[in-house]
C-alpha cells in the first residue's frame, strides 16, 4: 500500500512521480500493467487527462485503477473540457473513492488534438481551479453552498521554468502560489540553471511548496524535434538533440534513458529541487530503467 502523497511531500525525501498515459478505448490492460509495474516504485502516479487534446480513457478512471491496486494516484484536471459544475462533481467523486491528489491544469488547445471541432470550455483557468479546490477543501462549493461531506485534496499545479519570456509566466506562477498549492510538477526541463533560478524564485515566495522537475524520455532526434514543434511548453535544446544524434543506429532509446538518468542524478546530487516527475510518453515500462540510470 502506497503512502499518502501529502505525507511524502513533508518527508524531506527526494520525490519521484511518474505519469501513465491512458488508452483510447476500454482495453485497459496495458494501462493496468504499467500501473502494476510502477505503483510501488514511485511516490505517486499521474494519469493524464485527454493529453494533447486527444480523446482517451479519463484520468479519473485511471486513478481509480491505481487506487484499487494500492498505488497513490494524482488526478489531472484540465479546464478545457469541463465547466465548474462538472469539475466540482468529479472532484467529489474522486475523493469519495480515495483519490486525494489533484493536478490543476489549463489544458492543451483543441486545435492540436484529434477533435479540433469540439467546443472548448475554459469556463475557469488553472489559477481559479486551484482556488476552487481550496474552497471545496474548506467545506463549500464555489457558489457558497455547504457540502454534505467534504474533501481534503493535496493540490498541485504545473510550471514552465524555461518559458520565453519568463516574466509573465512568473507572475501567473505567483498567483498559483497565492491561490494555494502543495506541489508543482514542471514541464520538461533541460537547463538546470533555469531550473535552479525558478526554484529559488519559488522558495523565496513559499518555502513549503515542493517542486518536481519534469523529465521527458527522449528516444530519437526525430522525437525531440517533433516535441519542439508540436508540444506546447517543451523545448529540447540543440545540445541534447546532438547527444541523441551521437547514439548508434537503434540505440536512441538507450541514449534517451541515459540522458534522463543523468539529468535526474544531477538534480538530486546538486539538490536543485525536491524531486522529479518522469514522463516516459508511450514508454512507461522504461521508467524503472531511468531510475536505475539515475542511481535511484
Amino acid at each position: 500500500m502506497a503512502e499518502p502523497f501529502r505525507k511524502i511531500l513533508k518527508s524531506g525525501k527526494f520525490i519521484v512521480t511518474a505519469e501513465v498515459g491512458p488508452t483510447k478505448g476500454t482495453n485497459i490492460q496495458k494501462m493496468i500493467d504499467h500501473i502494476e509495474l510502477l505503483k510501488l516504485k514511485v511516490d505517486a502516479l499521474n494519469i493524464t487527462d485527454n493529453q494533447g487534446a486527444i480523446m482517451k480513457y479519463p484520468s479519473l478512471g485511471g486513478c481509480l485503477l491505481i487506487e484499487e491496486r494500492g498505488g497513490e494516484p494524482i488526478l489531472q484536471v484540465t479546464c478545457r473540457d469541463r465547466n465548474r459544475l462538472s469539475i466540482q462533481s468529479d472532484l467529489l467523486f474522486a475523493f469519495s473513492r480515495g483519490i486525494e491528489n489533484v493536478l490543476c491544469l489549463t489544458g492543451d488547445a483543441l486545435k492540436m488534438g484529434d477533435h479540433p471541432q469540439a467546443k472548448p470550455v475554459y469556463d475557469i483557468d488553472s489559477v481559479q481551479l486551484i482556488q476552487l479546490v481550496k474552497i471545496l477543501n474548506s467545506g463549500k462549493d464555489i457558489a457558497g453552498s455547504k457540502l454534505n461531506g467534504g474533501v481534503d485534496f493535496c493540490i498541485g499545479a504545473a510550471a514552465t521554468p524555461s518559458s520565453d519570456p519568463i516574466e509573465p509566466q512568473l507572475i501567473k506562477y505567483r498567483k498559483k502560489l497565492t491561490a494555494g498549492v502543495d506541489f508543482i510538477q514542471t514541464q520538461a526541463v533541460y537547463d538546470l540553471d533555469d531550473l535552479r533560478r525558478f526554484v529559488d524564485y519559488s522558495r523565496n515566495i513559499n518555502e513549503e511548496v515542493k517542486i518536481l522537475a519534469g523529465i521527458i524520455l527522449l528516444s530519437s532526434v526525430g522525437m525531440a524535434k517533433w516535441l519542439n514543434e508540436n508540444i506546447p511548453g517543451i523545448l529540447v535544446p540543440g545540445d541534447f538533440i546532438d547527444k541523441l544524434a551521437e547514439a548508434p543506429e537503434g540505440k536512441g532509446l538507450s541514449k534517451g534513458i541515459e540522458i534522463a538518468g543523468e539529468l535526474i542524478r544531477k538534480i538530486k546530487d546538486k539538490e536543485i529541487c525536491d524531486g522529479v516527475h518522469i514522463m516516459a510518453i508511450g514508454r512507461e515500462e522504461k521508467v524503472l530503467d531511468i531510475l536505475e540510470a539515475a542511481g535511484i
Partner: protein
Amino acid sequence: MIGMIKKPIEEILGYLEGKKRILIYGCGGCATVFHTGGEAEVNEMKKVLVENGKEVLAAVSVPFGEFSCYAPWVIKRISGYMEELENCDAVLMMSCGDGLQVMREIMEEEFGLVKPIYPATNPVGHMGGGPRIFKEKCIQCGDCELGKVSGICPLTQCPKSLLNGPCGGVRKGGKCEVNPDMDCAWVQIYRRLKELGELEKMDEILPPKDWSKTQRPRVLEVEPLSPGE
C-alpha cells in the same frame, strides 16, 4: 462591426431550390465594408440568380451608412417594395444574422407576411480595424474586463480566454500556443502594463467569469432616437 464572408453560392442556391421569385436585400453597414452585401454584391447576386433561372423581383441596394439591423430604416426602405415582398417566394438577405432576423420580424409583425428568408453570409466575428485588415476584438461578454488588462481583451485575444496570465504553452519569443503567428495575449498585456507602470494589476487574481451575462438571447430596451433617425 460584424465581420462576414460570403456563403458558397451552392449553399445559397440549395436554400432557394423550388423558389423562383426572389427579393434580394442588402446592407449598408458591415456587409458593405466586408463586400458581402453592399451595392456591388447585391447587383452581382441578382445576375447570378437570374443565370440560375430565378426571377429577381427586386434587388434592394442599401446605401453605405444604413445598416439593415436597425428596424426603423428597414421598415422605411422595404415599404417601397411591398408588391415585390408580397409576391416573392423567398427573401435572400445579404446581411448578417441580425439583419436577417430583423427583416423576418418586420415581415411578420409589421406586414403579416410569413415567408422563407435565407442568409447569404457567414458572420465570423465582432471585428475592428480597417480599411484593409480587420481583427476580432470583442465577444460581448457583458462585463468588460478591458479596464483591468490595459485595453487588450484576453477573452478574445487568448484562444483559451484565460484571465490570469499565459498558459504554459507559450512558444519561444512569446508567440501563442494555438496561433503561432500571434503574440500571446498575456505577453502583450504584460508588455503594455509594464509600459504603463501598472504591472501590479497582473498580480490580482481575477475570479471565474460570470458567463451568465452571456446567456442568450439578450434583450435591451432603450429610449428611441429622435424620429427620422
